[in-house]
């Protein structure tokens, strides 16, 4: 009989008549379905069904007129995908450029936000620290503001004569005109120019080796700083929850044994923080591949397409260029990229199945971190 945890325990412990059981079970089954019904309907209609429809659009030639399954819409196989992935023409090159841009964004933002949030968590976790609340508040506040508001602020701070350049000016540094500057920073370090002729041939997605090696543009760097600024607080809280779960005791024990600060950090909590580091890296990667709001609000892909991201390109292809098949294909390719990156991360870090072992508090903290990144409006981060 019912041995699963939950209400059935009533039935095994309380000596009630059998018919009563059956009635209770039926009642519970009915209530169970009734309770999940709104969720199933909403998620089914607005998440599951849309994905199926978009999958169809991505292999069809719908132009945005009439219903996508109307008689004038026909199956075109992998044409849209070929157009995106083939590297031919503007569509192919734009996709390649967007992948290049977003890849640098991911590679820089993810490690930096993880390192910074871990550092912040360690700094504000000390029990004896005075003004703990103030510091935590200061670091977390950017995480609750919308990405639209932060982007507006960023456009101002990083304008040609803006606060950042004024600050750099105090040290006699002439800052760039950030959001107007398409130069890649690796190109800048290498001294600019067109690069060796050998690197000019398109190698992947219609982009040449030299272009792949451009690095993030100066404009993209401003977005990279913004991402770090706005997410470090959320991840700091997640690390704090983990640190509190581990307890300060272990660290204090190590201190009495005469371990120095680095050893204390390196050998005691870090191995125990592994599952949380894994979570932050995963959430970070999934989130950074979906940059949209900032680009929509701030640059619309410019200057010279150096802040174009696949998410924005997908929107632009569909809603602006009315090329719905291509837009949907880009979205699915992006989905694939995110899945591949998550799998690679899982293989490299080898922390599968952490959900089973982590404590309930940490599981909640992770869900909340996930939800609050979503709540910024900066693309849903879901893992």
């Amino acid at each position: 009989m019912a041995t699963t945890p939950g209400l059935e325990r009533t039935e095994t412990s309380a000596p009630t008549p059998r018919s009563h059981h059956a009635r209770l079970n039926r009642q519970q089954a009915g209530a169970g379905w009734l309770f999940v019904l709104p969720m199933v309907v909403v998620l089914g209609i607005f998440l599951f069904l849309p994905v199926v429809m978009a999958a169809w659009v991505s292999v069809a030639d719908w132009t945005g007129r009439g219903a996508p399954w109307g008689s004038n819409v026909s199956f075109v196989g992998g044409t849209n995908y070929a157009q995106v992935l083939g590297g031919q023409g503007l569509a192919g090159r734009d996709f390649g450029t967007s992948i290049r841009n977003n890849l640098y964004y991911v590679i820089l933002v993810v490690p930096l936000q993880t390192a910074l949030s871990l550092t912040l968590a360690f700094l504000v976790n000390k029990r004896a620290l005075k003004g703990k609340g103030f510091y935590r508040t200061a670091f977390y506040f950017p995480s609750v503001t919308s990405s639209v508001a932060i982007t507006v602020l960023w456009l101002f701070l990083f304008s040609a004569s803006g606060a950042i350049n004024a600050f750099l000016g105090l040290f006699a540094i002439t800052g760039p005109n950030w959001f107007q500057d398409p130069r890649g920073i690796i190109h800048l370090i290498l001294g600019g120019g067109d690069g060796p002729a050998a690197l000019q041939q398109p190698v992947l997605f219609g982009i040449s080796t030299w272009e792949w090696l451009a690095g993030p543009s100066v404009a993209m760097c401003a977005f990279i700083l913004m991402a770090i600024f706005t997410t470090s607080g959320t991840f700091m809280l997640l690390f704090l929850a983990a640190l509190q779960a581990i307890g300060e005791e272990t660290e204090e024990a190590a201190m009495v044994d005469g371990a120095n600060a680095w050893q204390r950090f390196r050998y005691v909590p870090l191995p125990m923080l592994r599952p949380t580091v894994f979570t932050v890296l995963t959430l970070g990667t999934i989130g950074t591949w979906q940059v949209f709001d900032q680009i929509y609000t701030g640059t619309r892909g410019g200057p010279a397409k150096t802040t174009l991201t696949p998410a924005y390109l997908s929107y632009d292809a569909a809603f602006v260029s009315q090329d719905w098949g291509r837009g949907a294909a880009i979205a699915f390719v992006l989905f694939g990229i995110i899945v591949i990156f998550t799998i690679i991360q899982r293989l490299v870090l080898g922390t599968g199945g952490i959900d089973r072992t982590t404590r309930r508090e940490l599981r909640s903290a992770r869900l909340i971190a996930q939800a609050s990144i979503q709540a910024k409006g900066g693309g849903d981060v879901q893992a």
Partner: protein
Amino acid sequence: MSRPDTARHAGERHGVGHASVYIVLTALALVYIFPFLIQVANSFKTDEEATNAGLALWSANWTTAAYKTLFANSDFGLWTMNSLIVTVLVTTGRVFFVSLAGYSLARLRFPGRQGVYLMLVAVMSVPGVVLLIPKFLVIKSLGIYDSYPGMILPLLVDAAGVFIMKNFFESIPVAVEEAARIDGAGTFRTFWSIVLPMSRPALMTIIILSFQGSWNELNHFIVSTQSPALTTLTKGVASLASGQLSAGNQFPIKLAAAALMTIPVAIIFFVFQKRIMNASGGAVKE
């Protein structure tokens, strides 16, 4: 002999470490706070002064011109109304639906429960931006494009919220519910008058996250509406940012708009600071 020695050394290092920790923390805190101070300060400057002396927190000629222009020349009031309507309805609906579903998955046995759970996990793994085009397609075919239902209905449930509530319900002892059920209370009554009142901490977490989430939402409104009458703050301010009030860079106006739209989430944040800062958000029964 060597024992107290090491202890003292450790103590000294600790002291020095402390001072440097405060210096580092304070410097970092300044970096995090300063942008917001600059934002507010510059929203009260003239266009010219903001452009040329953006770093200064002080101005000799404070002016509220930016705020006046914002309200006179844009639909800022309308945007705020729309954001408010959507946020209140979404938050109310979400709290109810998410806790119902969470309770069902945590406590009730019903055929197909495992299937529902798996669907939820699958749904959570779909990245949000992938859904931009798909959501538009469905909203359009349901005939709710460019309407409040189209803006609100798709946001009524979020999978993370269901998991947060499920997690919470699993952490509260089942004994109370058992007692109520033996007394003959129905499932809904048990849920409504016994379980929910015990769940205030988790419900608050959901309210905060839903409020913040729907207030800050942008991309869903981009794909579900086009009429100016349904523009929300995020969409409206984003259009300001790309220069729809034209003439000059208009930094003070944009900063004023961004500052104003931050106020509601800032209030929520400061009121519920203690709860938010406790990372597990009280979402687990202690």
